[in-house]
C-alpha cells in the first residue's frame, strides 16, 4: 500500500486520538511507531493490520473509522492542499461528482505509483447518483461516504449519502443531492497559495 494511504490513517489517528493512542495501535499492528513515510510503498497487509488494531483499540465499528478518515481528509486544516486538489475536480458538487471517474488518474498524475481503486459515477435520475468503487480495498466505500459528506459541505451542497453495501469487491454509495447551493460553502480560489 502506498505510504500516502498509511500516512493518512496515521495522521487521522494521531490528530483525533493523540500520539499515545497512535503508538498503542501501531505497536499492536506491528507497524512503525514512528509513523509511515508518504513517499514509500508498504506491504498492503500493514494497512489492514493497522485498521484492525485501530478498531480494537478504539472499540469502534470499522465502517465508522473509515468514514471518519474520509471526512478528515477533506476537512482537517492540516490537509488543505488535499482539499484544494479535490476541489480542482469541479466548480460545484455535481461537477465534482463527475470528476470522480478521473480520480485515480488525477492521483497518478501527482504521484505515479499511487494506485487508487477505480471509481465510477452512475446517474440514475436528476440529483440521484451511485458512486461505485471497484476491486479495491474492502471498506473503501466507507471512506468515500465520509469524503463525499465533507466535500459536499465544502461546496455548500446538501446531500443524503447511503452505503448500499457491496459484493465481489465493488461497493456502492448512493448519493441524493437535495440542494446544490444549500449553504455558502468554503471558498476556493484557483490561484491561492498553499503551504
Amino acid at each position, binding site marked *: 500500500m502506498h505510504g500516502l494511504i498509511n500516512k493518512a490513517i496515521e495522521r487521522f489517528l494521531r490528530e483525533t486520538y493523540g500520539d499515545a493512542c497512535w503508538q498503542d495501535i501501531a505497536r499492536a499492528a506491528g507497524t512503525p511507531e514512528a509513523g509511515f513515510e508518504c513517499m514509500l510503498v508498504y506491504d498492503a497487509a500493514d494497512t489492514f493490520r493497522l485498521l484492525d488494531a485501530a478498531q480494537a483499540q478504539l472499540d469502534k465499528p470499522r465502517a465508522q473509522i473509515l468514514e471518519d478518515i474520509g471526512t478528515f481528509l477533506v476537512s482537517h486544516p492540516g490537509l488543505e492542499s488535499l482539499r484544494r*486538489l479535490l476541489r*480542482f475536480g469541479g*466548480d460545484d458538487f455535481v461537477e465534482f461528482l463527475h470528476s470522480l471517474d478521473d480520480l485515480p488518474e*488525477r492521483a497518478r498524475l501527482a*504521484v505515479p505509483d499511487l494506485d487508487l481503486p477505480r471509481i465510477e459515477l452512475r446517474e440514475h435520475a436528476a440529483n440521484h447518483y451511485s458512486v461505485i468503487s471497484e476491486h479495491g480495498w474492502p471498506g473503501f466505500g466507507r471512506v468515500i461516504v465520509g469524503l463525499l459528506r465533507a466535500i459536499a459541505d465544502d461546496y455548500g451542497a446538501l446531500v443524503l449519502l447511503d452505503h448500499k453495501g457491496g459484493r465481489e469487491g465493488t461497493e456502492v454509495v448512493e448519493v441524493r443531492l437535495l440542494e446544490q447551493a444549500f449553504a455558502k460553502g468554503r471558498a476556493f480560489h484557483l490561484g491561492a497559495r*498553499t503551504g
Partner: protein
Amino acid sequence: MKRAGFTPAGGRVLDALCPMHALIDSTGHIRHAGPTLDKVRPGGQLAGQRFLEVFELRRPRIAGTMASLRDAAGTKLHLRLRARPHTALKGLLVPLPDDASLGPPGGAVINLSFGISVVDAVRDFALTSADFAATDLTVEMLYLVEAKSAAMDASRRLNLRLQGAMIAAEEQAFTDTLTGVKNRRAMDHVLRRLAAAGTPFALMQLDLDFFKAVNDRLGHAAGDHVLQRAARVMVDETRACDTVVRAGGDEFVLILDGLTDTDRLSGMADRLIAELERPVRFDGQDCRISASIGIARSIDLVSPDPEAVMHAADMALYAAKGAGRGRHRLFVEGTTPPAAPR
C-alpha cells in the same frame, strides 16, 4: 460586445472558444476583448485602446505598425503587459478576411495565453475555472502544479529525514574511521554474539608501547600514520574470522574466534610484536614503537562471559607490561604467568 457591428455571431463563437482573444481594427485599436482578456486590464477597459500600447511586443522585434503586425501572422508572439504586474503572454495573430465577415477588414484577431506565467496570472487577476474554455488545459495544469508541489514537498521532507537517519547511522557505525578496523561498539556486538553462541575464543589486549613518544615528537600526523600501519599489521597477522578492534587511543583488542591453542596464540603474539617493532618511515623520520599483549582464553575461566575474559586479558597485559615492554603474557587462572620469551 458594445460595438456589436464588429462582433456578430463570429465574436460570440470566439468569446466561447478563445476567451482571451482580442479583435483589433486596421489602426491597431482593440475593438473587442474576450471575457477573460477583459479581466487583464490594469489601465481600464481594453476596447478602444491601442493593442500595442497595452501589450508590449517583445518578439519578434518589428515596427509597431498594423501592417508589420499582420505580417507576423502565424508566428508566436511574445508579449508583456506594459503596466503592472507586467504579465508575460503568448499570442497568435490571424489577419481578418477582407469581406468583413469576422470584423473590420485590415484588422486581426490575436489570441492570447499566459503560457508559463499562468500560476501568477491566475492569482493576480483572480481568475476562476469559468474563465478558461472547458477544453483549455490551464486548470489541469494548475492542478498539476499544486499536486506536484505537494508531492515534491513530501519527498523533500523524506529526504531530510533520511539524511538525518544517515548521519545517525554513521555515528552508530562499527568502523573506526582512522584505521578502518572495528570500533568499541562493534567489539561489544561481536563479544555478545560469541558469548551467545558459546564457542571458545581468545582475546588479545594489545597496547602500543612508545606510541605517545612518537606522537609528541613527530606530531599527530605521524601518530595517525603509525596507528594506521599498526592496524594493518594486526589485520594481516590475524585470520579473516578474527576481529581487530581499536578500543581507543593506542589500545587494540583482537577477538580470535575458536582459537585456543596456546602455541598458536603465543606465535601470533610474537609475530605481531616483531612486525610492530619494525620502524615506520614518516616524513623522512623513523617512527619506532613496540607492543605489549595480554592474552586470555574463554576456556580458562569458570564463567567465560565476555567481561570476565576481557578482564583476564587486561590482567595479563598488566603482567606483560610489568615484565618490560614488547612482551606478551597468557592469563592462567590463579597464577601469575611468567613473561613469555620473546
